[in-house]
């Protein structure tokens, strides 16, 4: 965020988050009341990663993979059973309140705002909650109001806000104390395209200009593509991937698609190295199995082609394959 004052130097030289061999198990009771059996589930099992100051990290995983459990441990709402965890140099579960003063948390599906009162009142409360000097508070509030365009609804009761407006309000509430780490749990869930774009642009700017470290969980891979240089994928309590987005694509290569616009509608194109998966009028989608150049040459030889494009596999497909433990991927993982 643009600021007239120099921002405070990052207090931690070391990593913002340092997790080593992090694990957490739960005991669950199953079955009918009289024949109840107890079973131990490893929700998180030996997760290790470091997040450096200024990084934006996407934390992905299917429901039940251990995402929320990890998040809860990071913010001190849950004690790890095993391993070592430091967030901003603190042990979260032990120093939850002290840590809370230095992290901002937004749960996409929950709100910290006062439902029946104007948004302004909830935001004013954070000043006392985090003991922010009045001048700093006023300055940050003005900046955030400007960046997130809160002006038109600052005086509106929260219950009357749209979901997108409420989310911008929640983000503001989480950032008014200028946290070093922002933890977002599905920040764009349920939002329309425009609201998502606003929030993503804001987060990118926050990270670039303020250097705020951001850790976000999401099922919306648009968030990841737009924001995260680094992605961690958790599945069955273990880290299945930790690296950049390009690496994730390479690691779980999906088929590329050749979109062919023929001069006129016709039967499915049949060429070696490609398979027609969809037809719509003169347009056909071919899943590429062989060399794209050869396939394109072959298609052009057989049919009259108006236009051609090659589509990369979407990140959705890549992650879905990763979750499913794709056979090809398992082979690629064999060395580790």
């Amino acid at each position, binding site marked *: 965020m643009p600021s007239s004052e120099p921002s405070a130097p990052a207090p931690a030289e070391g990593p913002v988050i340092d997790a080593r061999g992090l694990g*957490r198990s*739960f005991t669950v009771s199953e079955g009918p009341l009289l024949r109840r059996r107890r079973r131990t589930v490893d929700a998180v099992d030996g997760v290790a990663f470091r997040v450096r100051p200024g990084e934006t990290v996407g934390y992905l995983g299917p429901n039940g993979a251990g995402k929320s*459990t990890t998040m*809860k441990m990071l*913010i*001190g*709402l*849950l*004690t790890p059973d095993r391993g070592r965890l430091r967030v901003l140099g603190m042990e979260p*579960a032990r120093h*939850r*309140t*002290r840590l*809370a*003063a230095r992290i901002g*948390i937004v*749960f996409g599906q*929950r*709100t*910290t705002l*006062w439902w*029946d*009162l104007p948004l302004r*009142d909830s935001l*004013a*409360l954070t000043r*006392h*909650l*985090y*003991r922010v000097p009045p001048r700093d508070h006023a300055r940050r509030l003005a900046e955030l109001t400007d960046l997130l365009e809160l002006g038109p609804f600052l005086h509106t*009761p929260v219950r009357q806000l749209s979901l997108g407006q409420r989310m911008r309000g929640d983000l503001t509430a989480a950032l008014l104390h200028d946290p070093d780490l922002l933890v977002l749990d599905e920040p764009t869930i349920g939002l329309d395209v425009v609201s998502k774009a606003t929030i993503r642009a804001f987060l990118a700017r926050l990270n670039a200009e303020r250097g705020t470290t951001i850790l976000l969980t999401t099922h919306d891979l648009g968030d990841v593509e737009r924001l995260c240089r680094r992605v961690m994928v958790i599945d069955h309590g273990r880290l299945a991937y930790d690296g950049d987005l390009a690496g994730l694509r390479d690691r779980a290569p999906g088929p590329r698609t050749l979109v062919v616009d023929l001069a006129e509608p016709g039967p499915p194109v049949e060429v070696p190295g490609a398979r027609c998966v969809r037809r719509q009028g003169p347009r056909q989608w071919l899943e590429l199995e062989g060399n794209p150049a050869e396939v394109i040459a072959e298609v052009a030889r057989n049919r009259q082609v108006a236009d051609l494009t090659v589509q990369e596999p979407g990140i959705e497909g890549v992650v879905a394959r990763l979750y499913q433990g794709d056979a090809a991927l398992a082979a690629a993982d064999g060395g580790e």
Partner: protein
Amino acid sequence: MRVYCAVFALGLRRYSTYRAATAAAVFTNVVFGLINASVLLALFHARPEINGYDATDAVTHVFVAQALMGPAAVMGPPLELAERIRTGEIAVDLMRPASPLAWWLSHDMGRAAFTVAARSVPTFAAGALVFPLALPDDPARWAWAAGTLVLASLIGFAFRYLYAASGFWLLDAKGVSAVSHLLAPVFAGMLIPLVLFPPPVADVLRVLPWAAMVQVPVEVFLGKDTVPGGGPAGALALQAAWAAVLLGLGALVTARAERRVVVQGG
């Protein structure tokens, strides 16, 4: 401390937005007061004096009790905390650098302060218009009455906090609240003045924490001074003791609940 003052102010403002609900509550309190007063008047017509109460005392009791309905919340509403525990929103609360007990206490005291102005005063005034009520003529007695009102509100909060916190173990505190909201009005002297019970029973009920929300404040207002130790100071000391015990219990339960959530992941 500043944050709790701010929460108090927000609690007050928040409840001031529920205008229709407030008007409905005043209406209910007044109507219930009128019915209750008529029944007691019939009773006192047959017996002019029962265990130190005359007809005017009884009717005054009814309207002070109705006026306490808002601030002491003997019959609810339950704290929102209960719902937040049930839905898991409590996680958001636990992430605030503030004590949950103090947070909800300030919030509820904001609510209580609003209900004193918007419910207690009109309800009592309506009663005074219809019936001759026994008003204290000593200004000091009014001051004692104000103190007893604050303590009654604290006790009312502490009870509801404990009910709500039971949700950490029971998942849903509705059952606990339902039972307590049925029994509390009887034990408190809200439904009928405790003096209508046989004196030995009344004497026991009077020193229990429920009575500290209604019967004890009413007797301070009426100048009855029946609490052992005598005088309004004794009554307020009894209330303060119960407030301390219940809030202390609340703090203990909070610590246990936090540990349960954080360690067991409950």
